[in-house]
């Protein structure tokens, strides 16, 4: 088959050895690559009871058959592991160049097993795998390491952890190509626990394409569609993802001060419009991407990629901070330290509320922008209160007696949408397999932007249909692997046809949704095996019981119960959220 390299590389850090073997193509046919393939392999490799920070956990980096083909946004890749933050199955997804290079090096999958006795970095170059001592890199930050190891966007790509990962912060990220990240759920800590500092890849191969004519047609159609959509041709390149700030705030769905309010008076000051006006140098893009949503921002002190909407919200509205300069600088610092910006910001916000209420002794207060940078450093190096904060908001809040003040689901801090202003988003967060996350489906389209059509954000009945559809679709897209922003202009029927053109296997559009559904159910089974139950499909009490006192979402709490009941039925699960046998048989998961 074409598209895939059909090769897996296993690296054993215990013995500093490696082996390559053929990819199970039957598995690949059913799970494609990226998130799907990674989930399936993780199922076999990491069972219940394995501590996420023990040598028995693994890191599975996966590309997909589309990766490196040159199809628009065919640069993305995944890492699958058990999350040290949530204990659930985790996949994190990143862009840039590294994933593309992994394919050029000849591999669909790279699995890191075991633990190195001493810090090590790995070089994969033209078929050779070399282990290098990393003593002189250990302790260094991401930018320095990336430069030192010879980062060159199209030819040689560095993936590494910063001090946060080395110090096993449960919200640590794995960074690639300098400022791209595999961040949510703390995969950086897993890498740190293995004493693995970096993986550098260089390669020369290109994936084979089964039907070049058809592929060329798909490229042409996709180019047309992305150019025709104002979302991908105007809004994103001009304003970046931060363009969401004003609209989400306007409707009263912007979590503020640790979700105490749903509107932030400083939203305009930290919006995409403000960023473009005052601090934007230019936009940029990942490999093979015509959209260009990446920001390059500059203040007096720093210049770097980003910030994205979620980051700007997390360090901004969530912390009551309206100082965009400080937020830009916090983002650059957070990336350099190697930490998830969403979890970091929301954990700081949680600490701010704990402090203001007197549960913690600290001078953290909402609005204190000058404390962002020192707190991030304290978290990365586990100093003072930072040592507790490095474990995420749930462990922090629990330690100080108030777990209900962690704005997280299954331990993962929720992103920039307050579900009291978007009912469907509440269902999404409660049911996402990796915890409170918007990237595994997103009701932003239907509930806020009117894409494809506006549905009432306060409506409850029938919401689950949209949530299920979006969850399945995004699982499929994460398995191809391409960027979800392509989906803003290009429907799933095109992805099915590109996949067919590249691989030679005929995937119907429906099959793509089926694969998404399969991946979703497999992830669910994994979490059930870990001991998660219906009780964990919930939201913080604040969102279920405390209605906003003001603003357009005034008086609303999340009506989770009816939506959840309808959701389980719609998914073919029983009333405890366990997939029924006939659903598993339908999805060819019955033997798991």
């Amino acid at each position, binding site marked *: 088959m074409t598209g895939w390299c059909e090769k897996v590389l296993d690296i054993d850090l215990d013995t500093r050895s490696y082996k390559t073997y053929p990819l199970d193509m039957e598995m690949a046919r059913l799970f494609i690559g990226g998130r799907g393939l990674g989930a399936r392999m993780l199922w076999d490799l990491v069972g219940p009871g394995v501590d996420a920070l023990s040598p028995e956990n693994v890191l599975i980096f996966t590309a997909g058959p589309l990766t490196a083909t040159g199809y628009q946004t065919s640069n993305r890749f995944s890492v699958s592991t058990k999350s040290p933050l949530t204990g659930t199955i985790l996949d994190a997804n990143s862009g840039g160049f590294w994933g593309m290079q992994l394919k050029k090096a000849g591999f669909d999958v790279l699995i890191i097993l075991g633990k190195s006795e001493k810090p090590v970095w790995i070089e994969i170059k033209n078929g050779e795998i070399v282990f290098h001592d990393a003593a002189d890199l250990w302790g260094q930050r991401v930018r320095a390491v990336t430069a030192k190891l010879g980062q060159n966007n199209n030819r040689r790509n560095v993936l590494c952890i910063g001090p946060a990962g080395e110090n096993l912060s449960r919200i640590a990220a794995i960074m690639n190509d300098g400022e791209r990240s595999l961040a949510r759920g703390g995969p950086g800590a897993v890498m740190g626990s293995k004493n693995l500092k970096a993986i550098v890849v260089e390669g020369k191969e290109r994936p084979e394409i089964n039907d070049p004519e058809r592929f060329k*047609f798909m490229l042409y159609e996709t180019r047309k569609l992305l150019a025709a959509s104002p979302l991908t041709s105007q809004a994103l390149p001009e304003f970046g993802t931060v363009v969401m700030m004003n609209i989400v705030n306007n409707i009263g769905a912007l979590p503020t001060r640790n979700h105490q309010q749903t509107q932030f008076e400083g939203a305009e000051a930290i919006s995409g419009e403000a960023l473009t006006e005052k601090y934007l140098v230019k936009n940029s893009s990942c490999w093979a991407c015509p959209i260009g949503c990446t920001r390059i921002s500059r203040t007096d002190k720093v210049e770097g990629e980003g910030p994205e909407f979620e980051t700007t919200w997390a360090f901004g509205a969530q912390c009551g901070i309206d100082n965009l300069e400080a937020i830009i600088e916090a983002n650059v610092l957070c990336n350099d330290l190697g930490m998830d910006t969403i979890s970091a910001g929301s954990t700081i916000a949680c600490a701010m509320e704990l402090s203001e209420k007197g549960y913690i002794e600290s001078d953290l207060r909402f609005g204190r922008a000058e404390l962002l940078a020192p707190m991030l450093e304290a978290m990365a190096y586990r100093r003072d209160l930072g040592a507790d904060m490095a474990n995420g908001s749930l462990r922090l809040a629990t330690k100080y007696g108030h777990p209900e003040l962690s704005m997280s689901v299954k331990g993962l801090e929720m992103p920039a949408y307050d579900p009291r202003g978007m009912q469907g988003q509440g269902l999404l967060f409660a049911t996402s397999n990796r915890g409170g996350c918007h990237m595994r489906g997103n009701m932003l389209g239907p509930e806020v932007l009117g894409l*494809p059509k506006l549905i009432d954000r306060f409506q409850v009945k*029938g919401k689950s249909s949209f949530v299920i*559809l979006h969850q399945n679709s995004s699982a499929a897209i994460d398995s191809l692997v391409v960027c979800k922003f392509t989906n803003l202009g290009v429907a799933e*029927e095109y992805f099915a046809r590109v996949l067919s053109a590249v691989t030679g296997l005929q995937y119907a559009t429906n099959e793509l949704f089926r694969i998404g559904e399969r991946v979703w159910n497999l992830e669910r089974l994994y979490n059930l095996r870990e001991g998660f139950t219906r009780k964990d499909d919930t939201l913080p009490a604040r969102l279920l019981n405390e209605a906003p006192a003001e603003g357009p979402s005034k008086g609303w709490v999340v009506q989770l119960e009816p939506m959840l009941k*309808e959701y389980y039925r*719609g998914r073919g699960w029983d009333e405890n959220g366990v997939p029924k046998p006939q659903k598993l048989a339908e999805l060819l998961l019955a033997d798991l």
Partner: protein
Amino acid sequence: MMDDRIYQMFREIGHDLYTANMISSHGGNLSIRLGDRLIIKRRGAMLGNLKPHDLIETGIEKNDSGVALASTELLVHRTIYMNTPALAVVHCHPRTAIAFSLSRDEIVPIDNEASYLLKKVPVVAEEFPSGTPEMANKVAKALQNYKIIMLRGHGSFATGQTLDEAFHWSSTLEESCQIALYAKIIDEPFIEYRKMSESYSKF
């Protein structure tokens, strides 16, 4: 009690279909999915002038509405929901598209809009094109890879996330077929204006 917004949505699209000559007085059908339930027009109701009591809610897996629906219609819709990610279905009788369906296995548009949106519309055929499980399965299967298909001599089935979307595909198809009909009447050599158009029939 039918949600008024849902009723208004059905009423508007039903009316638009009728005034666009895409259905007869009592023909065609619309449905939407809500979780594991669906809402559909009652048997004998007129899409062009729907009343609130003309909409029925029932189960996708089983018809539990207790109302005698047009069983032919309901089975197809349920089969579509059980076999595709559709959240809405529009079934209508676009007359020009039906005429073209009689003599070909796929309709490949020549106009710009339908080339852009649809690329190609397959035609499936069934001996008794109404009401049987065979027909329902055939239609549902074809909709697994295309958002609108024709059932030869009978009409179109279109799916979408909303009724609007499914209506959009239906209306685009009929417009496209009307243009193709005019081109046939004009009967002059076709000057290809679209890049890579030879790929549309392979979509």
